[in-house]
């Protein structure tokens, strides 16, 4: 539950889209692994067999594509474009994640690492969608083309699966306080100051910052 003085970092729509994307993606991981490894075929039993598991995978893929489009449109502005020079400087010191850095360059709503994750999700997500649809409906396409969809789908999975754990770590225990951004959307000012200082300043200056228990300056002036 938010306490007085906490700030709003995501809106409800953002959180819904995020969890649609994350939920469909994780279900795709589970069902996909159930097909990739014969040792994991038993996952199909939970769904009434492997035929059903494949249906779950294919239709979840559709939900994933929809979520991906929504996420791309929603976050493109904040996470799709790098802002120089601070993003470059941030990358030069790996955001202080790997060695001790006195003063991490101030970055906006998303740091370059998050932007790279976002762009990877969009890029690999599109690849997964296209290759998946071709494998689902290979009709009328040349065999040589269809054949390459399989390793490309697997390649996308390699990248997605690895990045997922990076994201999971950094979104939870690696950055205490962050996970609330995707749960109720409220975070402490101290968190925002540490994680997204430039964004915090901009929001405060423009008076758009929503603080729990206070009216926004904008709203107050009405």
């Amino acid at each position, binding site marked *: 539950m938010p306490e007085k003085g906490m700030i709003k970092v995501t809106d409800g729509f953002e959180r819904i889209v995020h969890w649609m994307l994350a939920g469909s993606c994780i279900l795709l991981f589970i069902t996909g692994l159930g097909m990739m490894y014969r040792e994991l075929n038993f996952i199909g039993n939970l769904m009434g067999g492997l035929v059903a598991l494949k249906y779950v995978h294919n239709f979840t893929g559709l939900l994933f594509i929809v979520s991906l489009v929504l996420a791309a449109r929603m976050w493109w502005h904040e996470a799709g474009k790098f802002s120089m020079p601070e993003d470059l400087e941030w990358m030069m010191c790996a955001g202080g994640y790997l060695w001790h850095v006195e003063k991490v360059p101030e970055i906006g709503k998303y740091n370059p690492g998050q932007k790279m994750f976002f762009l990877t999700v969009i890029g690999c997500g599109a690849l997964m969608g296209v290759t998946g649809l071709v494998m689902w409906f290979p009709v009328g396409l040349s065999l040589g083309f269809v054949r390459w969809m399989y390793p490309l789908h697997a390649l996308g999975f390699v990248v997605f699966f*690895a990045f997922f754990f990076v994201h999971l770590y950094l979104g939870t225990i690696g950055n205490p306080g962050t996970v609330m951004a995707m749960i109720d959307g409220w975070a402490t000012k101290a968190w925002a100051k540490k994680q997204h200082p430039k964004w915090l300043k901009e929001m405060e200056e423009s008076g758009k910052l929503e603080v729990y228990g206070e009216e926004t300056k904008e709203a107050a002036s009405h």
Partner: protein
Amino acid sequence: MSENIKLFDTSRCTGCRGCQLACKQWNNLPAKQTVNWGSYQNPPTLQSNTYLIMRFQEKADANSVKWFFRHEACMHCTDAACVKACPTGALYYSEFKTVGKNIEKCIGCKDCVAACPFEVPKYDSGANKVLKCDMCESRIANKLEPACVKACPTGALKWGEKETMLKIANERVKELGGDAHVYGPQYVGGTHLAYILQEKDAVYAGLKIDPKVPLSVIAWKDWLKPLSLIAGGGVVVGSLLHYILHGPKRPDADVGQDNPAEGGK
């Protein structure tokens, strides 16, 4: 169990299609309506209800016409791309080293259709299953020869111990001379259907030249599949090490808000 192969000798085949019919009969695969496309070859390619076809080819020169017949069915690779690709184990190596199929397990995903270098497995959308020749596994398990071999009236088809069959094949090739050669043992770890071809490979319509397990299948199943778990596991271990060695990124204690170390909780 001894390893057997099926040997087809083009020079002894009369194109009677007894093998094609015997296959349909044994596997209970009634024909569907087909169209006349100007050839005895019917249907034009393998189908989900036709595991074996006789290929007919006419070659005419100035004053003679030559026929080429080829018995086409699953090659039963030793190193089978379809078995590698199959996610459920519906396609498997039988105790006879042929490629068997367990229809119950097939989920109709068509992964094998794209993987097979010989374009053998065919999808049946009605049943949502992929079907192909299983070398009459129920027959060979009972020491019978496959139905097609049983039906062959000329000895063009033979079924027997691998080494013996290959010896026969090599002797026959010497006898035939010219461009005659054996097709099969040199590919995909050795096929369990081998041909004695009288002409060069390129002469036979639909015959795959230098067939291999596709690189795409190797990249997918041999490289990327294990890499996915290695990379994911590496990241999990790396993250935990990061947490222990470097530590999480906590908000600074001196910033305005109460309870900074607990973040948003």
